């Protein structure tokens, strides 16, 4: 097992190398660079632009730019410098990363807390009215784009004035005591977290329902019933435990998607996360911010998949990595 993990981690190095190379090539394909707009600005002299170009290292050949960037990562863990914000990319991403994590973790917790009981409920009452209703709702959940449900909830908040519309903090956030700050962020969190949790729990609930139905058909469940066990222990002690197993893989994938799952929604509700950062950076051609975000996103994704495999191996003794 340990050998497998180490091997997977070693595999990560060429993989991430490929990721950075591809993202660098893609960005270089795009027309213009960060300074293009400045060149058209009559107020900024061409000498200034030229000086900035040298300063950012944009005058060097492409492969030198790339290798320099790569070397800084290896030597100092430095992801480069943001042209637009004039701060190191590492710092910029770090500040946004936390916001995105807060949002996605909240959604993850809600989704699991809601989806598992609902899935069990639906599976144990297959084809009943509540099962059919829940299943249809789940279809709606997986089919509704997050930006649409986000807009709907924002509209609701706008009309009723119950919840803040967009953003992560209120204007007077700085003046709140610490519990006021927590409460303020929590209030802003309600809409985006609900939207994400709706989509996620729909998929999860379908999985849970399907798995449980599959398990309930197994012989050992029939045996448990035949020996006169009450229905509750049959469901919760025998069936549910086995039905949850495959969901562990999904859990791992969700860990991998923690950073990228909310990209559009962040832009709709104005949540200052990584998704918004990458969009702004793309518009401004802020080269290293884009590359840094892609890299960080990829690392989480790959690590999430690894975690999924490890968790599965622990949960299911039939799986061996040798």
């Amino acid at each position, binding site marked *: 097992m340990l050998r497998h993990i180490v091997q997977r981690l070693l595999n990560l190095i060429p993989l991430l190398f490929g990721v950075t190379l591809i993202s660098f090539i893609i960005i270089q394909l795009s027309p213009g660079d960060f300074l293009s707009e400045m060149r058209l600005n009559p107020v900024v002299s061409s000498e200034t632009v030229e000086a900035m170009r040298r300063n950012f290292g944009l005058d060097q050949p492409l492969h030198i730019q790339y290798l320099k960037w790569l070397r800084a990562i290896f030597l100092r863990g430095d992801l480069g410098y943001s042209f637009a914000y004039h701060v190191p990319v590492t710092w910029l991403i770090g500040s946004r990363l936390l916001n995105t994590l807060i949002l996605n973790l909240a959604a993850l917790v809600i989704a699991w807390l809601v989806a598992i009981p609902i899935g069990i409920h639906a599976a144990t009452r297959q084809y009943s009215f509540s099962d059919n209703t829940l299943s249809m709702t789940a279809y709606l959940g997986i089919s509704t784009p997050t930006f649409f449900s986000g807009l709907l909830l924002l509209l609701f908040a706008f009309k009723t004035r119950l919840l803040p*519309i967009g953003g992560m903090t209120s204007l007077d956030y700085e003046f709140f005591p610490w519990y006021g700050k927590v409460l303020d962020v929590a209030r802003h969190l309600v809409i985006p977290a609900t939207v994400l949790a709706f989509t996620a729990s729909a998929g999860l609930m379908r999985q849970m329902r399907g798995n449980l139905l599959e398990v309930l058909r197994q012989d050992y469940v029939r045996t448990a019933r035949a020996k006169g066990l009450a229905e509750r222990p049959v469901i919760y002690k025998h069936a549910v435990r086995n039905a949850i197993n495959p969901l562990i893989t999904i859990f791992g994938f969700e860990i991998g998607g923690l950073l990228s799952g909310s990209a559009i929604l962040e832009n709709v509700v104005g949540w200052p996360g990584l998704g918004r950062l990458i*969009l702004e950076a793309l518009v401004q051609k802020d080269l290293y911010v884009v590359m840094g975000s892609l890299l960080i996103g990829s690392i989480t994704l790959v690590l999430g998949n690894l975690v999924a495999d490890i968790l599965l191996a622990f949960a299911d003794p039939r799986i061996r990595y040798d």
Partner: protein
Amino acid sequence: MTSTGSGPSRREAPGRRVLPRPMAALAEQRQRAMVSRPPLALAWRQLRKHRVALIGGVILIILYTMSLFGDFIAPYSLDYTDRERFFHPPTRPRVVDAEGRWHLRPFVYRTELVDPGLRKYRIVTDRTYPLDVFVRGEPHRLFWIFPTTLHLFGVDPAARLFLMGTDQFGRDLFTRILYGSRISLIIGVLAVGITIPIGLLYGGIAGYYGGRVDNIMMRLVEVIIAFPGFYLFLTLSAVLPTDVGCATRFYLIVIILSFLGWTGFSRLIRGFVLSLKEQEFVLAAKAIGLDDLRIIIRHILPNTSSLVIVVATLSIPGAILGESGLSFIGFGIREPCASWGNLLTAGANLPNLAQSPWLLLPGVFIILAVVAYNFLGDGLRDAFDPRLRSS
């Protein structure tokens, strides 16, 4: 395909567990079942019983028909603007007039702008404008070929027929939704149409040769899969030139969607082919001396057909959602072209949306199309899943 995730309407088969009996008899029985009914017919038989899937299919047929006849059904043209009637609420076809008289034929009333600030319109009830069928209107090309001015329905130009209201420029939303459907509904089909053959061939070759070839080919796939999908999608679309026409941009987005889509699919096919290549019919084909590519294409890949149909149907909604999301944030299809995603952009402004909630209607169409594909896809999966089939 070992699908653990099952649709809500997955059929249970409690009494149909195969009882232990001599293997030979079992094999013989299976043989007979296969001879008597081709797999597609079997699947169709199952699908017909799957009500939800049929509903999905019918919705899709309606949507695609509307899209095909879009310019004929639309009362106006794509670039029709009525600057006097921006954010105009949906026109209600009526059968009872202001005096309480019933009319056999639906009609509408004319409207007048009262307050441009509050976007208030007054309904003028001095005369009725009956709804006409097959009216002459703005010229368009039916099926992109036949020039005509005929529209399915309309009203006298003195009144307006804005079935779903208008946007900030006074463009008819219903018309634009119809035109937008041509982009939003076709983009998924096209992207999957490119993805499937590439994924089949790539996964087929990797799985068939195995070993080193497989290793190298799959490394490339892994690199692309390692990207967070939507981030890469965004980055790629930022590369697209902005000064090209709508059609060019449309095809470029199709290419991007396919570039992202083929990897997962080829992985799936590879796994399937790996399990198939040791089977006797492949060994037999090798023994006759057929060349590898022929074996892959003619003998191995046809076995994946049911898998392909199911996966294709279930990946189209993903592509539709991807395009609409991209267009919504302004990176996909751009104005003046219409797609369901970029039509929703008008609703992104909350004060606007609060006053004109009909701006959300394009989203309803997105959901409708995606739900329909999911219905159909789940039904197909159940129909093709041999574990659930009663032969």
